């Protein structure tokens, strides 16, 4: 079965100062996603996670442009689609959930109007069937007494409820892919757990594929099948979540996993030294080498290529690219 979404060598750049300064926000990103799968896209702020997602849905800001690569979604290349056709794909086939529900809901329209809009435009529902569809969607995201609450306005709802309304809007067009950009960052822990459980249930019912953009590896451990770790515009490692948590090959993945506190343990945290790099001024060679505990002379001059292990595990690092037996051996010496 061909994948639902196949991104190959995607490159998105920002052009500023009349095109004299080019910042490569996404630089050769490839991944694929099957129906019903969940991909976690992890990285620090400014590493290009959000730009990758905006490239997928064709909502890039005016200064940014896709300069290379393909985005194959259900057999069609989205990079070649005119904006008019993209409008039909957005909302119907690909939906997006953003971080702040108060910013993604319009305060002047009722919940009904906002949840009904995608069903009105993309499925052509009108009148009573539209009303029924909205109630069905609100019930699917566990809003109590939907026939009453759909007349409410966003300010009358709590943060968790608002985020579930955004979820209902995302589901309204019957999407095949949901892109969730840090959907639970603003929610309380128990509300976050409820929301994640809800997304899992919806995925099991509808078979929708989800891309989870987050910097929280705990969410990845709970929700995702695949993990893609992004650093300075590139995917430095991707593969099955279990493989990456058990035996990360890239030092950055390893360091990220070592920097999260574990419940009930007082072991010192591994702190990655330095700062995330500025995309406009990247170090030569591997972009991670100034912060890497295993950096070698070669890392400072040459960029590592993407190396494949097994079917879907890829790593960009010189340590695993030596064809030696001990992947980390030479670094400690």
């Amino acid at each position: 079965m061909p994948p639902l979404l196949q991104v190959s060598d995607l490159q998105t750049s920002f052009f500023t100062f009349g095109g004299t300064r080019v910042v490569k926000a996404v630089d050769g990103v490839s991944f694929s996603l099957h129906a019903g799968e969940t991909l976690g896209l992890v990285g620090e702020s400014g590493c290009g996670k959000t730009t990758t997602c905006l490239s997928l849905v064709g909502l890039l800001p005016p200064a940014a442009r896709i300069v290379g690569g393909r985005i194959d979604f259900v057999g069609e290349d989205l990079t070649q689609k005119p904006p008019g056709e993209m409008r039909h794909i957005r909302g119907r086939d690909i939906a997006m959930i953003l971080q702040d529900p108060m910013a993604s809901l319009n305060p002047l329209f009722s919940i009904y109007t906002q949840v009904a809009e995608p069903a009105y435009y993309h499925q052509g529902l009108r009148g009573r069937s539209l009303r029924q569809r909205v109630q069905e969607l609100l019930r699917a995201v566990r809003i109590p007494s939907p026939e009453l609450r759909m007349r409410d306005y966003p300010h009358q709802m709590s943060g968790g409820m608002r985020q579930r309304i955004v979820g209902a809007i995302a589901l309204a067009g019957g999407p095949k892919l949901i892109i969730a950009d840090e959907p639970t960052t603003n929610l309380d822990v128990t509300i976050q757990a409820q929301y994640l459980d809800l997304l899992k249930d919806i995925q099991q019912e509808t078979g929708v594929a989800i891309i989870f953009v987050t910097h929280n590896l705990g969410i990845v451990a709970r929700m995702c099948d695949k993990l893609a770790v992004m650093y300075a515009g590139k995917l430095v490692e991707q593969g099955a979540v279990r493989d990456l948590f058990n035996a990360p090959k890239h030092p950055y993945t390893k360091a990220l996993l070592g920097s999260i506190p574990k419940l009930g343990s007082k072991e010192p945290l591994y702190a990655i030294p330095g700062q995330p790099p500025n995309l406009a001024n990247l170090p030569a060679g591997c972009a991670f080498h100034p912060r890497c505990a295993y950096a070698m002379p070669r890392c400072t001059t040459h960029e590592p290529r993407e190396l494949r292990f097994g079917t879907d595990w890829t790593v960009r690092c010189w340590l695993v690219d030596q064809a030696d037996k001990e992947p980390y051996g030479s670094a400690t010496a």
Partner: protein
Amino acid sequence: MAAPLLEVQGLQKYFPVHMGLFLRRQIAWVKAVDGVDFAIAPGETLGLIGESGCGKTTTSKLILLQEQPTAGTIRFDGEDIFTLQGQGLLRYRREVQVVFQDPYSSLSPRMRVGDIIAEPLEIHTTLSRHALQERVAHVLELVGLQPDVAPLFPHEFSGGQRQRIAIARALATNTRLIVLDEPVSALDVSIRAQIMNQLEHLQQTLGVSYLFIGHDLATVAHISHRIAVMYLGQIAELADSLELCAHPLHPYTQALFTAALPSHPDEKRQKLALSGEVPSALNPPSGCRFHPRCPHAMPHCAHEAPVPKEVAPQHTVACHLY
């Protein structure tokens, strides 16, 4: 436990709610903090954990003397802080400092880093210009920054470095207690570990106490010696942090642990038994405030408020189950 540095007893803070534009009738009270007891020993970190609206921040504001309590006392070094005046008050303000969540809004963009750190010193000490600069250089080194960054402005720093500057400012006046109000929530994952390790290191070298406020269980449990779990203005459970992780007793604490994200995909996951959302503190449920959401609620939970009970040494729970 040694004599506590800070002792909070029966602390209450009610905010009045008014209605109407002209007559301003008072219609209700928001019971933001309703009978809170805890103590912090010298050199200790107490974690205060709870969801939004549970009264964490109001508690910290009371400790920082930004609010006056409705009832209850806070003693610092045995003295009631709400009756402090003159030199005593100045000394308290010098020895208790705060670090806020967002280092982008807590540092003035118009002041140089050196001036930001020197400001509390100018108010509280009579150091000469030269001694002041030396002190600033010293605290900058303490938090892992170069002393020559003093003439720079905050916008020239990243989020993690700004949080270090905020910590340096809090340390400048020979501080004994720092209130840390979600100090790492706004930072990137890799930077979070840097700041947490820095805070632990500073505590070991300077012996300063922390009140660490947060909502992420793993982070709070990692840095704290003891943890107080707050729910709707009251402390549900207070215990040693490792003890609390091993044996959470209050149903709300147990729910928080179920809701905590796993650190590995193979970790067993349970479905959250908790339904609904935190009720408003404006009209809190009668009896035990947790009973409408509690999976173990009994009939008398709705009428009688549970009293905190010491079920094990240094482990108190406010729940009718124990």
